[in-house]
């Protein structure tokens, strides 16, 4: 019998610890499939963040380094500068990348560090129990915005892809989504391009992936995908912001 589908070699044989309906698992798989397809498993190093994907090193089947909160782009810089022949990527959430780690991501991008960044944006802090994220939408209720995010009190959600696309050092900046199969496929293509660009020494590459958090949004899996489509995409438009 012909095998038509299997676990990527770049994933370990470990069950994901993510909540039901969370799209982290899918995004992990897309990254792993890409690394398999590009045949770079033996020279890829992933940098895991602080947040829900803090244990990403358990799931990715290659060398991994765990960074402190928000500093993954700096750690990746140290790795890439020391190991230019290796493929270095960071896997970061919105709190990690767009709040505590804003300086690190902006400067990695503006230096044109030849790395790949997988940025998972689900508009909330997942691991710490659902607090306001820098990408939390106006009106969105979280543990720390129990009456909804109010722009006057809490500021506005930050659009990372648009911001990083303005920097000279960035090469490929794209925002995709995981809310339906069509967009999952587009996400996979974007992830692959972000890695191919690194192989071709094309500066800084980031894929912002809109993702869900059923547990902290208080919705089931299907409702979450619908909420993402109806609420997040209008504020965080999908598409390529830079591709040079």
């Amino acid at each position, binding site marked *: 019998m012909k095998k038509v589908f299997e676990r990527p070699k770049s994933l370990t044989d470990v069950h994901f610890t993510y909540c039901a309906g969370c799209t982290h698992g899918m995004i992990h798989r897309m990254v792993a499939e890409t690394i398999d397809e590009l045949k770079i*498993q*033996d*020279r890829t*190093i992933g*940098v*895991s963040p602080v947040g829900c994907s*803090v*244990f990403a*090193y358990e799931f990715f*089947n*290659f*060398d*991994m*380094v*765990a*960074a*402190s909160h928000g*500093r993954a782009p*700096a*750690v*990746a*810089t*140290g*790795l*890439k*500068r*020391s*190991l230019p*022949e*290796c493929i270095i990527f960071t896997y970061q959430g919105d709190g990690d990348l767009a709040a505590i780690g804003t*300086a*690190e991501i*902006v*400067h990695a991008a503006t230096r044109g560090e030849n790395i790949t960044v997988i940025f998972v944006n689900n508009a909330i802090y997942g691991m710490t129990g659902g607090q306001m994220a820098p990408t939390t939408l106006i009106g969105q209720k979280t543990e720390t915005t129990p009456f909804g995010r109010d722009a006057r009190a809490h500021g506005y959600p930050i659009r990372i892809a648009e911001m990083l696309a303005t920097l000279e050092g960035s090469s490929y900046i794209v925002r995709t989504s995981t809310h339906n199969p069509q967009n999952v496929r587009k996400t996979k293509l974007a992830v692959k391009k972000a890695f191919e660009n690194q192989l071709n020494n094309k500066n800084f590459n980031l894929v912002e992936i809109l993702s869900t958090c059923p547990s902290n949004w208080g919705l089931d899996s299907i409702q979450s995908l619908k909420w993402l489509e109806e609420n997040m995409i209008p504020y965080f438009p999908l598409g390529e912001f830079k591709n040079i």
Partner: protein
Amino acid sequence: MKILMKGNEAIGEGAIRAGCRYFFGYPITPQSELPAYLAEKFPSIGGVFLQAESEISAINMVYGASCAGVRVMTSSSSPGISLKQEGISYLAAAELPCLIVNVMRGGPGLGTIQPSQSDYFQATKGGGHGDYHLIVLAPHSVQEMVDLTYLAFDLADQYRNPAMILADGILGQMMEAVELKEYASEIPHKNWAVGKSQGRKRNIITSIYIDPKVLEQHNLRLQAKYKIIKAHEERAEEWMKEDAEIIIAAYGTVARIAKSVIKKAREKGIKAGLIRPITLWPFPDKYFQDLGKIKRILTVELSSGQMVEDVRLAVNGRIPVEFYGRMGGMVPSIEEILEQIEKINSQIERVKL
């Protein structure tokens, strides 16, 4: 052959000779000559010099490069070292070797750019969160800026632990004749580092151990390592100690002044000597065990009294340990310290009467 070098540049030259080719830092006075030296020298020898957007980023770049198994360093001065503490805790936790240079200046806060020794607690007692230690070396001459840089890299690799050179603004800025000795050690192979896997089992470098039982075991392992370092690496200089009744305990710049004080005291018939800790962590307790004829110790620091606590722990109440210090970038004169020695000497004589 000796050449004339500035202290900060001597560390840079020492690092190059010890095989370091990676530097990540952020500008701050009074250590600026060190990054400037490496920025000029590294390109022609294949080194990577990167000026980061912050101290926080710089120390995390060091973390990344150390994970890759290369010899890597950063340097800063007091306020910048405070910013690095998060990364330093992670480096210690993940057992990553590197060199961190602190050319101390007066604090707290933004303080001053003048020399100080007020980061002793921060350097030797942790600084960042968690139970950990750096290996902390204290040069007192431009020569030692080179020699201890060699040693710091070696010890960091040997024990898989970050090492720190704790200097001050005077040592960084002063010029002295230096002999650039041949660097003789071999950089060890690091089988734990990440990189091209070439068929080996994958390597993971992390400091998270979510299960308390596992984290306690990790901590116990770290503590066992620190115990080994303590047993093997205590270093100090003893100077005119043999017949001394009064010992000055001082490190770095202050130890230089202390030597002049001791000469003057001896001219006046006071038997003074020096114990100069070279390793601040591990603190050289063993040099304070055989007190011989010593009746008093005077610890002198450019601080409100930080190392004096370790001197007192080492002496453990057997003889009085006095303290004299200046703060905020002020440096005591020879006369000032001599006055303290004379005071102590008169007290000893009163006891004799």
